């Protein structure tokens, strides 16, 4: 034998002896392999049938949350979705109308903002527009797998937050946003919410937001899947507890970050 003689031993034996040895080794290997296979099937059954947390068997839910925390830990403001020239716009369809069922009564709309230990504030669109306007053309990724390029115009949520709390004030770890009727809601970690590409948007593709695209004010957060880009925001609630999230309650990842 050439190389690796130690790893690949060879034995020359009488025919029946050789057959007997190989048969014994094979039997033992099939037995061990069979037990291992049974163990793997059992593990798979457990992973897929353990009691669910928000529609996901808890071992998988824990791993989704772990992945989310890892992703959040690694996220930095330098992690940007690529930006494009405005002539690349296209491919983003209005998708999802939860919380938009009733026609928008613009004159009655206002933005409620709450935070722990602070009194609730009611803001108008003009208040939001007083903040510096940012325009960006980025990819919008739907959790279904499609994506498109769209332009957003609005105020950075980080500016909005700094303005709300005042300089140097501590900011809670999470924020919850909901439509005025409370039918659709998202929860966000503060790192993603304060990311420079997270906007409270009032324009899309150079025009004021259409109603089906979330007028008068929506979230544009390209570092998250589309499901987090809530339309027609009526409530912004800063909170210390991880808030509820519409799709996370239905079996999706709570973090849903890109």
């Amino acid at each position, binding site marked *: *034998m*050439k*190389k*690796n003689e130690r*790893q*690949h*031993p*060879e*034995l*020359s*034996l*009488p*025919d029946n002896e*050789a*057959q007997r*040895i*190989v048969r014994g*080794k*094979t039997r*033992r*290997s*099939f037995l061990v*392999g069979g037990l*291992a296979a049974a163990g*793997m099937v059992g593990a*798979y059954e457990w*992973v*897929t049938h353990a009691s669910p947390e928000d*529609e*996901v*068997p808890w*071992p*998988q*839910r824990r*791993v*989704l949350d772990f*992945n989310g925390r890892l*992703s959040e830990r*690694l996220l930095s403001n330098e*992690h*940007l*979705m*690529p930006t494009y020239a405005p002539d690349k716009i296209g491919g983003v369809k209005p998708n999802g109308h939860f919380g938009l069922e009733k026609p928008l009564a613009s004159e009655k709309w206002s933005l409620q903002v709450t935070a722990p230990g602070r009194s609730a504030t009611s803001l108008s669109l003009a208040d939001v527009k007083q903040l510096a306007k940012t325009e960006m053309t980025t*990819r919008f*990724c*739907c*959790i*279904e*797998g*499609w*994506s498109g390029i769209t332009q957003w115009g609005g105020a950075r949520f980080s500016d909005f937050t700094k303005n709300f709390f005042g300089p140097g004030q501590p900011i809670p770890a999470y924020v919850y946003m909901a439509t005025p009727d409370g039918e659709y809601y998202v929860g966000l970690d503060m790192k993603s919410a304060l990311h420079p590409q997270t906007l409270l948007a009032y324009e899309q593709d150079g025009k004021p937001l259409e109603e089906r695209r979330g007028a008068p004010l929506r979230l544009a957060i*390209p*570092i998250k899947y589309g499901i987090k880009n809530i339309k027609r925001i009526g409530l912004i609630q800063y909170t210390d507890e991880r808030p509820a999230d519409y*799709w996370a309650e*239905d*079996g*999706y*990842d709570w973090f849903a*970050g*890109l």
Partner: protein
Amino acid sequence: MQTIRQKHLLGTRWFHWINLPLLFVMIWSGMLIYWAFPTYSVGPIRLFPQWVFTLFNIPQRLAEGMALHFFFMWLFVVNGVLYVAYTLLSGEWRYLVPQSFSAFHDAWFVLLHDLRLRRDLPSQEKYNAAQQIAYSAIVVMGAGSVVTGLAIYKPAQLGWLATLLGGYPIARLLHFTLTVLYLVFFTVHVAQVILAGWNNFRSMVSGWEIVNEEERTPAS
């Protein structure tokens, strides 16, 4: 007298047989995800026709697919990394990785032989040239699945990677294409194992083969 020889190391066999169900779960959960936006086709053949999704009960399971995919990805990656490390450290890679460009030439003759178009095989060690190329390529494909998968999993945090691969939609296409190639590999691999017979299959389970048994038994 008969010679018996250990052909496959214990680690090689474990990593191989653990990878099989892991890869299968990754493909299955990937199908659950892909269903939500099944845009690819080969010529006139849609990937996949509705009846394929219906047959396997795939529709409306996107959330389930994502949870499974992002759970088992860890095990798939860990098993793959351990396999590569083991193969390097044990020296087994010397049998697996083609040592020269003549491997491609030899692999062509292996293919002709397997298609019954050529009588004799080029000389080989443990693996013939076609096997060397296939088993090396599958490792590269595995790494490719991880890289393209990361690009579409985190196109913001790993934006440079998505850009390097030609952008988010192209990375998604590459990720999908690799999956189809696994299915092609799997089909050919299983067919070859069946054709090679019991002595060969047994060696992937127990590690041991009987040398030259094929020549001792009359050709069927």
